[in-house]
């Protein structure tokens, strides 16, 4: 893995800091709650936690308008929540309930919230990248300056469809922001077993797509970069690419840590954990505000879990509903 460069001191306004903290904390706490509940087997779906990676979603999405569109993968809880996705509907979905955002037919890997312009997340790596381009094509046609952001992992860039989409997006100057969350692993396979070189940004730039690499996980840097990209995309500049280094703290799938598994080392995580944007932001808040936010989040999560628990499972007779639209 690359050396972890020193984090720049955030320079956001107090209101921004509070917003970022709230969003980061909410995502972290939701996933911690999922992890806590998981062993009890109430959640009937494999979970891919974003813990440690939240700042990418929060930083990028903060630069969007509510009616911009976000597409993400199975590791999509952070993007879903950062974009304003309904928390109750998310928990209910994890619980497989009829009130879930996909009515119990999706699970953790298939979250969706059309009201908040969240394209459904997908479990087959890379598949949502061209879908995002299709969305961007529609928004370009619409001509109201709306943009699409698509989040995907380092592994997804190995799929041919990623390259096909880059070319198409550049050719049509689509308002599409590609965000690669490079956490250096695909399941347990390290980057250097999969990438011939690390010159991804350089490669993307050959399509005429501006490509930026952010290696320090700095939320404000990510946000600034995304803001600038989105502004130019709204003017019709065409796609932009962001590679954000980040780090996954938990196992690939499931609720636990797995540093003991041997494929990676805890020391690798340390610099990321020491500069955790959630901590950084938290320390910049006054303790009272912080405590209040924390409490609100705790409450919201408890309500969402209660909502999920109180919701009923879809009726077995409804099994064949929604196969075909009427």
């Amino acid at each position: 893995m690359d050396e972890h460069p020193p984090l720049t001191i955030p320079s956001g306004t107090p209101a921004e800091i509070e917003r970022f903290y709230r969003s980061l904390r909410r995502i972290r706490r939701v996933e911690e709650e999922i992890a806590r509940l998981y062993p009890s087997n109430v959640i009937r779906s494999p979970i891919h936690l974003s813990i440690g990676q939240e700042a990418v979603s929060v930083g990028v999405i903060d630069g969007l308008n509510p009616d911009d569109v976000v597409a993400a993968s199975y590791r999509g809880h952070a993007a879903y929540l950062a974009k304003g996705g309904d928390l109750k509907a998310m928990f209910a979905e994890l619980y497989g309930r009829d009130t879930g955002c996909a009515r119990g037919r999706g699970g953790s890997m298939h979250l969706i919230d059309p009201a908040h312009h969240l394209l459904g997340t997908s479990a087959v790596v890379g598949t949502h990248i061209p879908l995002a381009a299709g969305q961007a094509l529609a928004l370009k046609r619409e001509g109201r300056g709306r943009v699409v952001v698509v989040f995907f992992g380092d592994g997804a860039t190995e799929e041919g469809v990623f390259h096909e989409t880059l070319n198409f997006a550049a050719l049509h100057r689509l308002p599409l922001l590609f965000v690669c969350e490079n956490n250096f692993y695909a399941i347990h396979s390290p980057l250097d077993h999969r990438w011939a070189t690390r010159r991804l940004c350089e490669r993307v730039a050959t399509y005429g797509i501006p490509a930026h690499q952010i290696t320090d996980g700095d939320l404000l840097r990510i946000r600034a970069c995304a803001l600038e990209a989105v502004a130019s995309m709204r003017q019709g500049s065409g796609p932009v690419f962001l590679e954000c280094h980040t780090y996954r703290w938990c196992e690939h799938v499931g609720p636990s840590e797995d540093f003991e598994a041997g494929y990676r080392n805890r020391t690798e995580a340390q610099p990321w954990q020491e500069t955790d944007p959630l901590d950084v932001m938290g320390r910049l808040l006054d303790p009272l505000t912080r405590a209040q936010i924390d409490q609100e989040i705790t409450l919201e999560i408890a309500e969402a879990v209660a909502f999920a628990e109180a919701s009923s499972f879809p009726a077995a007779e409804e099994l064949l509903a929604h196969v075909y639209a009427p």
Partner: protein
Amino acid sequence: MSTRPDGMSGEGRLLRYVDALAEAVAQEMERDPRVFVFGLDVTDHKGIQGSTLGLRERFGPDRVFGTPLSEDAMTGVAIGAAMAGLRPVHVHIRNDFLMLAMNQLVNIAAKTHAMYGGAVTVPMVVRSMIGKSWGQGAQHSQALHALFLHIPGLKVVMPSNAHDAKGALIAAIRDDNPVIFIEHRLLYPTEAYVPEAPYTVPPGQARICMTGDDLTLVGISNMVVECLRARELLAEIGIQAEVIDPIWLEPLDIETIAASARRTRRLLVADNAWTRCGIGAEIIAAVLERAGPAAGIAVGRLGFAATACPPAPTLEAAFYPNPATIAEAAYRMVKPDAPAWHPDPERAKLAYQVQFRGPF
């Protein structure tokens, strides 16, 4: 519209299949600004054998455009655009190339509506051509509808004539689900009466093309034409075949087929595809599950020989079912104990087969 026994109105002008396709798309694009057409070669001077000619001039490059050679991503783009409220018609000159799009079609398009609990729809049409006797060999001659039929969430339609080509394409474009629309190249020049005003040939309704009491012949796509010719050959020796065109294979009008087979007690499906796990197997199993053994229905399937399509003419001729082999198989089912009968192979040929020699 007045009704004829074959369910076609008999109104309108004589129009070629290819022109019916073009007319359907143009009318839908006129009616609905969300419809757009894209795919490799749709805007060149050949215009997918003429079926997309003139569209770009009429509707502009935003709504009619070619693409890079990127079937996988382009299918994803179609799905994404459909989810965003547009209505893409994605065109492929060969059905074979859809194998590059299988992941998007099977894992995304087919599942999106169900897997998000109905929250979104994927109103897209995937047009592609199949063929016969092109000498094109293994990779340019397949008809892979069975693969799509296996996957819940996709609709599949294979019209056999110009009338249905127009009506089914309009129905497909208006459908809120992904529709795999498969066109047989040899049908392109064939003519039928086609009403000028838009109309639909809706999903799930088979057509009894010709009635008969001795045997039910189900033809898929161009095999309807070949079955009709087989029927003529059979009629000459006193056998009356009922010919059914399912038109839509999913949703499939199994009741019409089952009712016919119950009556004739013989069911033969001629497919322009391999038979193993094909639509013939499906129709036979579905009919017999419904009818039970007491109905005493004899069954048979015809389709591609179980090999890659060979260009050598001797092999190619044996590869495909044709009116003679269909008639022979039907004869064996009706008269299992009679000596073999072989219609004159020259007389069995269809006009379109005799003439066709390219272009590719």
